[in-house]
């Protein structure tokens, strides 16, 4: 149990996908302007990450068994793209309420580097199936957390009055730097808590 908790929390806090690993920066900067969209996007990414790992992990085992590891990237990206499409169609047809809050974000994350990143990462780390799913959940929740925190930061930044040349993107990146700095405080915490 401890090893799952350790993976989960280290993915959320220490190896935060956005602020430490720099994956999924485009939606992080693009959709974090409003709180509601930030939550929707974060939740959609979490869902897709877990599902993507659920599908790509067995595929990786097959590829390894057949000695076709070099097909990993092609196989993963196509499977993830198809999965996202199917998920959107499924939600629209059967769970319209969920489609309203999550579904509209799905087409935006078809080729999101955070999703492909987590699928590749769990293979590199050599996690078991369950560990991989937990890692996917952690990565998604970490993304959600970063989006929510940053949408709050951005509301302040929008009202601030930085020097002319820093308006827009530069000041957003500088505030992202400070947010990332705050996450540096978590390094070592997980090892200490779970004695891993």
């Amino acid at each position: 149990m401890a090893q799952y908790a350790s993976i989960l929390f280290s993915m959320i806090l220490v190896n935060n996908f956005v602020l430490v690993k720099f994956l999924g920066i485009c939606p992080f900067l693009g959709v974090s302007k409003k709180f509601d969209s930030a939550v929707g996007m974060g939740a959609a990414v979490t869902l897709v990450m877990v599902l993507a790992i659920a599908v790509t992990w067995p595929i990786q085992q097959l590829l390894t068994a057949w000695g076709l590891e070099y097909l990993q990237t092609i196989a993963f990206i196509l499977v993830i793209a198809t999965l996202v499409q199917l998920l959107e169609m499924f939600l629209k047809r059967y769970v319209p309420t969920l489609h309203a809050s999550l579904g509209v974000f799905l087409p935006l994350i078809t080729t999101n580097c955070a999703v492909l990143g987590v699928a590749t990462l769990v293979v590199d780390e050599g996690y078991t199936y369950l560990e991989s799913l937990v890692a996917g959940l952690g990565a998604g929740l970490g993304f959600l957390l970063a989006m929510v925190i940053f949408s709050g930061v951005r509301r302040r930044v929008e009202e601030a009055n930085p020097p002319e040349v820093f308006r827009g993107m530069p000041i957003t990146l500088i505030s992202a730097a400070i947010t990332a700095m705050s996450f540096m405080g978590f390094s070592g915490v997980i090892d200490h808590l779970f004695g891993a």
Partner: protein
Amino acid sequence: MSQNTPSPSEPTLAQVFDKGLLEENPALRQMLGLCPTLAVTTAVTNGLGMGLATTFVLVCSEVAVSLLRHAIPKTVRTPAFITIIASFVTLVMMLVKAYLPALDEALGIYLPLIVVNCIVLGRAEMFASKNGPLRAAADGAGMGIGFTIALVLISAVREVLGAGTLLGVRVLPPFIEPMIIMVMPAGGFAVLGVLIAASVWIEEHPRHKTRYVKKRVAPSASLCAACPINCGIGDPTDDMCAKDEFVEMLEAAVTAAKKEAEEREQ
């Protein structure tokens, strides 16, 4: 489709190549491909390696897409482009693994992630699918080299400030303590923010205005690859940027979906 004799209004090969370097620089001006821009730029060698790998993929996939542009049906073009790009990324991964194992180690999962770099798919979609192979190659080379220059610039700043070295050679005098924060993630965001501010300053400064005529022409997916509006401005400070409209559009989609859900329940 006369690829070899462009009409006078069409930009020449040199202009196609040139615009990726500064005017439409993918990383600094269009804000595309920010993930690798921030993640691998802790040392100049990594930035350079990443830039060149991306350039290779860009040129090859643009030429391939351009050659196949009449064969690929419109409806399946995105998956087809992704498959082409992924093939070249796999090729690069194998080459790097075989000849530059140290670079492979340093770039880690960011090497396969070139597949989802918005620059590559964006150029395939916006340029290669509409132009001949020669122009596509020039566009790929320009964008790729522009991206490489940006990566080298960012990584040079971060390596000198964060480790006190440049290309592994010590450049700062020993009494200056390097700022470790610069090679940490937080430093990546900060350096990119300051560099973009600097490029805006160079452009807007009255003394430079005559030389760098303000051009906001980049026909790109811009700031957010997530933005389907594609207004091509990519600057939230610009009144013309469609970002707010994008947010409104998203909200409208949510409202419509909710309504649909309610109707279904009744």
